């Protein structure tokens, strides 16, 4: 049996015919395995869904309780048998509940990484490298220019700016699922204990993280009409809100944005960011290369992102590598927009 017989690429995404199950499908399917809660991976409308309890909770919070036919929660490391296939979810270190999925069949071990990172994150379980024959890796930051610095140092830049400009509101653009919570947790680790303010689009997932046991300290809603008084405060908002009319009501706002994309100055400048913080929930180049080596895989499939460079690197390392050109997975920007839209659609009660 070959890897291609176990996993194939269909218009709905990766498909395992032996178990009749899709992984992170892009359109409604009868049976789905979901790696994590970002909206480009976790969509509503499937029949049966297998995912971690946290991922299911995120999907329910986002799409409502009826987001799928039946939901089954799986623990990290717990093997689930689907016909001739064994499926195991393992921590991916990306966001709360995120998992890599190990698929074993016909003596082959294939790992679908989903999105992952290796840097420490106080809000989720750390990535566990798994030995496998085929490793399917993301490549969001698959160029050797993306080498993420220590996140604590980036948080210190924000804290330094707060002491230098104590009268200015610091608007911190961040993806609402995962990044936002990680930033608050990092701020707390660096000793920042003042309230952190939230744009409406950030509230629900922030609250969910709290319910799932991630302590984030004093979080407050930005009250309508209360923006003028938030000089010197940290305000978390979706990246899209930084350039909104909404942002202009704050006292002399500093537009900060935490993302791996901030590594490249032109991208930060394009978005009008004044304080770029390079904090990423995806593996950077060095992490991608190290992880591929650690898995011991002889074959690497590269999905969303900068496939070309990573495939080139694998080939040079003597690994069989090919790009999986799947459309529909973005970096998490699509995610941020989606959440912002939801927030507009449902006026918070």
């Amino acid at each position, binding site marked *: 049996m070959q890897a291609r017989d176990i996993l194939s690429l269909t218009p709905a995404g990766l498909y395992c015919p032996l178990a009749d199950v899709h992984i992170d499908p892009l359109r409604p399917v009868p049976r789905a395995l979901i790696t994590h809660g970002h909206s480009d991976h976790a969509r509503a409308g499937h029949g049966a869904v297998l995912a971690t309890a946290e991922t299911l909770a995120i999907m329910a919070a986002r799409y409502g309780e009826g987001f799928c036919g039946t939901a089954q929660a799986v623990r990290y490391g717990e093997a689930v048998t689907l016909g001739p296939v064994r499926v195991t979810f393992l921590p991916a270190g990306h966001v709360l509940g995120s998992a890599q999925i190990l698929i074993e069949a016909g003596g082959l071990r294939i790992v679908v990484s989903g999105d992952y990172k290796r840097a420490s994150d106080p809000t989720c379980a750390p990535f566990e490298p798994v030995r496998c024959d085929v490793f399917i890796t993301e490549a969001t930051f698959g160029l050797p*220019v993306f080498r993420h610095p220590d996140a604590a140092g980036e948080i210190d830049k924000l804290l330094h700016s707060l002491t230098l400009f104590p009268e200015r509101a610091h608007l911190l653009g961040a993806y609402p699922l995962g990044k936002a919570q990680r930033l608050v947790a990092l701020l707390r680790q660096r000793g920042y204990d003042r309230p952190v303010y939230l744009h409406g689009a950030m509230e629900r997932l922030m609250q969910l993280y709290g319910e799932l046991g991630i302590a984030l300290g004093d979080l407050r809603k930005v009250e309508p009409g209360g923006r003028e008084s938030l000089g010197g405060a940290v305000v978390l908002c979706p990246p899209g809100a930084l350039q909104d009319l909404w942002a202009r009501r704050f006292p002399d706002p500093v537009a900060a944005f935490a993302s791996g994309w901030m590594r490249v100055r032109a991208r930060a400048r394009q978005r009008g960011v004044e304080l770029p913080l390079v904090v990423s929930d995806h593996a950077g180049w060095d992490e991608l290369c190290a992880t591929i080596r650690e898995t011991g895989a002889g074959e690497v499939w590269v999905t969303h992102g*900068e496939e070309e460079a990573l495939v*080139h*690197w694998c080939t040079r390392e003597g690994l069989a590598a090919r790009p999986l050109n799947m459309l529909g997975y973005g970096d998490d920007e699509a995610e941020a927009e989606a959440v912002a839209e939801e927030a507009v659609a449902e006026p918070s009660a």
Partner: protein
Amino acid sequence: MNDFAELLDRLAFEPRRNAKLRLMEDFFRTTPDPERGYALAALTGGLSFRNAKPGLVRALIAERTDPVLFALSYDYVGDLSETVALMWPAPSQAGTGHNASPPRLADVVEGLSMTAKTELPGLLARWLDALDETGRWALLKLITGALRIGVSARLAKTAVAGLGGVDPNAVEELWHGLTPPYEPLFAWLEGRAERPEGLVVAPFRPPMLSHPLDEEEFSRLDPAEFCAEWKWDGIRIEAVRELTLEGRRIVRLYSRTGEDITGSFPDLCEALIAEDAFVGALDGELLVLRGGRVESFNVLQQRLNRKAITPRLMQEFPAHIRAYDLLGEGEEDLRPLPFAERRRRLEALVARLAGGRVDLSPLVPFASWEELVAARARPEEAGAGIDAEAVEGVMLKRRDSPYVPGRPKGLWYKWKHDPHLVDTVLMYAQRGHGKRSSYYSDYTFGLWRSGPEGEELVPVGKAYFGFTDEELKELDRFVRRETVNRFGPVREVVHTGERGLVLEVAFEGVQQSTRHKSGVAMRFPRISRIRWDKPPREADRLDYLAGLLPREGTMKTRAGKT
């Protein structure tokens, strides 16, 4: 230099002036000597490294990275220094440089000046190994001369001045006597030492600048309180001539930003050295004068653009100063004196100069704003003569204004902007006064609008200047020939769609008026051209003028109604 790099990085993203100042001030306050001094030098453009070319940087990265990965990365990032800074591999553990401490800016400045060209790649590689990403980026930007972070030398000096709470001009005046790393400057600003006086020979004095004339403000100004000069289309220059303690004659020429440009004008410098009547500082305009005539800015530019200052260039484009202020004479600082007094001293000085390289920018006489408008419209007839083409407007200076560096409010104005133009139709003409009393020289003109009986002309203003004597004669002839009605001294001239005369009228703006039938009044209208060629039907409409009304006014009206 990681700290300096972080400052540069932050400055490059910060659009606000005040925030830039705060970032720099914080840096200067918390960074020790001599590091901050070299940083100040870098920010004011005072460091130049000639050794490092982009080719060297490319060669270094090529030795360390896969060419395909480099090409993909460079393509994505789009900037060589940044790509190299990001891709630079962490030094191998076995290498010697991995635990070296990052270089200070001082090390870099010194290293680059002391190191032989052949050793430069090795040195640069060791620095890049020791720096973090931002440090590498800044170092590469610095040595390839591509540091663009939106900070002017003036802004950096302003930040330094902030350390000691002094006026930035106080730093500016010392500047040319100081060299990196500026330790005496920092010592003074931090109150640890006296002001480092006496270091500067022939120092720069920051210039006084003017405000554009604001229409609103204009109507409140009293012509009797002002002098007017031509605004010359050259470059602002400050010429300082001093004697050193040993009696040596020193001349320095500065641009308006305080850049020492003496080296570009050896001809002027030599001429000024010889002017023994002059010890002090002149403010004026640098112009090219040929055959006693001021050349246009385009001609001046041909000299400014040339790097090599050859005798031929100097002969072809002789540099000249047209002086308009005297800032100091001998030991005396004239800047606190009123303009009129400084002007008197300037006139006396220029009269004593012998070489002909410096002359006086003449005052433009006027008794009323109307007269000044007329002069501005026709400088060649108001004293500028053959130099009129190099005049780009007039300067207004309060007679009692002291010379205040920077852009103080309410003292000096430049009146430069292009006037509005409108094609009107001549409707009535009236006899003039004085020497013009025998001519019909006051003209009432109108614009088209839709009336109850179709298109009609409505009078919008009067003009009685803007034309030459020759044109006046032709206009007078036209009025006499085409008169359709007489009312005392006023003649109505033919003005139908097909027959009549189109006058192009220049004016400074419009305001609402209840006195005018049209509802709008033009400010300082004058005839700019006579359109013998244009049928009256094609003249402009009243709506055009109404559209120029200040928007604020209309908004107020609307708000008042609701």
